[in-house]
């Protein structure tokens, strides 16, 4: 079969993987698929970081040109989602990190590498795990961010396959 794609989220000090992950809810807890009403983000705080990556299974020849960006969902006042491409996994933290704002266009998208640090995932090559590196995401808010849920965001992951 062609390549099958799944999103994966990792959490915890010992890296517990949830795959496929059903949602990417940001909140005040380090867990996958969290309930935002149980773990809301206090105004002025940041969410716990999310470590998202992709996994390819099945068969293919090459996967390349991997990109990630926020494709929809307007910010409310004082809100921003930060992101870093090809991050190394560390226990997610709610401490504000120094990452840049997630790109919002394909032209400025984050370029994603394979877990092994290559821009192409070659099927069957020695040492190829089928994973990408991590995208680290964190929601940032300020004291001026209005109370209540923000607008829903949509992210896009894109890749070429032969």
């Amino acid at each position: 079969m062609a390549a099958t794609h799944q999103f994966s989220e990792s959490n915890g000090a010992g890296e517990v993987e949830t795959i496929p992950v059903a949602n990417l809810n940001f909140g005040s807890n380090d867990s996958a698929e969290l309930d935002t009403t149980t773990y809301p983000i206090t105004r002025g705080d940041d969410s716990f970081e999310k470590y998202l990556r992709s996994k390819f299974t099945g068969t293919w020849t090459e996967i390349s040109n991997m990109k990630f960006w926020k494709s929809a969902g307007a910010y409310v006042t004082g809100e921003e989602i930060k992101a870093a491409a090809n991050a190394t996994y560390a226990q997610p933290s709610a401490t504000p990190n120094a990452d840049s704002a997630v790109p919002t266009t394909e032209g400025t998208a984050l370029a994603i590498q394979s877990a092994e640090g290559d821009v192409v995932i070659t099927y069957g090559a020695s040492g190829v795990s089928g994973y990408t590196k991590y995208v680290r995401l964190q929601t940032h808010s300020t004291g001026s961010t209005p109370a209540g849920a923000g607008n829903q965001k949509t992210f896009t992951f894109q890749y070429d396959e032969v």
Partner: protein
Amino acid sequence: MSNTIDKNLDSGNNSMDSLSFYWMAKFEDSILFQFDNGKENRFQLVKDNLDKLIFFHLYQKDGNKRFIVDLKNGIIKYNSSSLPEIKEEKNNIRLIYFRRHTIKIGEIDLKEKSHIITYFLGLQWTFNNKNKNIILQINDNGDFIIDGK
């Protein structure tokens, strides 16, 4: 030709349902189907034999749309009609083919909201020491746009 292809559409237990187009490669001395009696042939086999490749077909799994790249003459056909071509001497004609996956996910309820596959099919050649190309972007329904430079 179409009957031959239809006989080879069997994808067995492979989960290829996400693909609406399959490929077929005609070489100087053989034909290779993406699916052959339930087994998938990887595109690597085409890449490994590009010097012998004459035609590359992309045909609809559940329909009758077919795109044919003629590597010897540097033209692309849609069903039986030739698409507009650039009439110039084409040297070193190369195949362009890949599938672009666009997966949209939501912050909340992040199921894969949509997984769109676009087929890129075309030709690249050299003219006056410059690389030129024509590429079709084909959606699941077989609708396409033509791009090139």
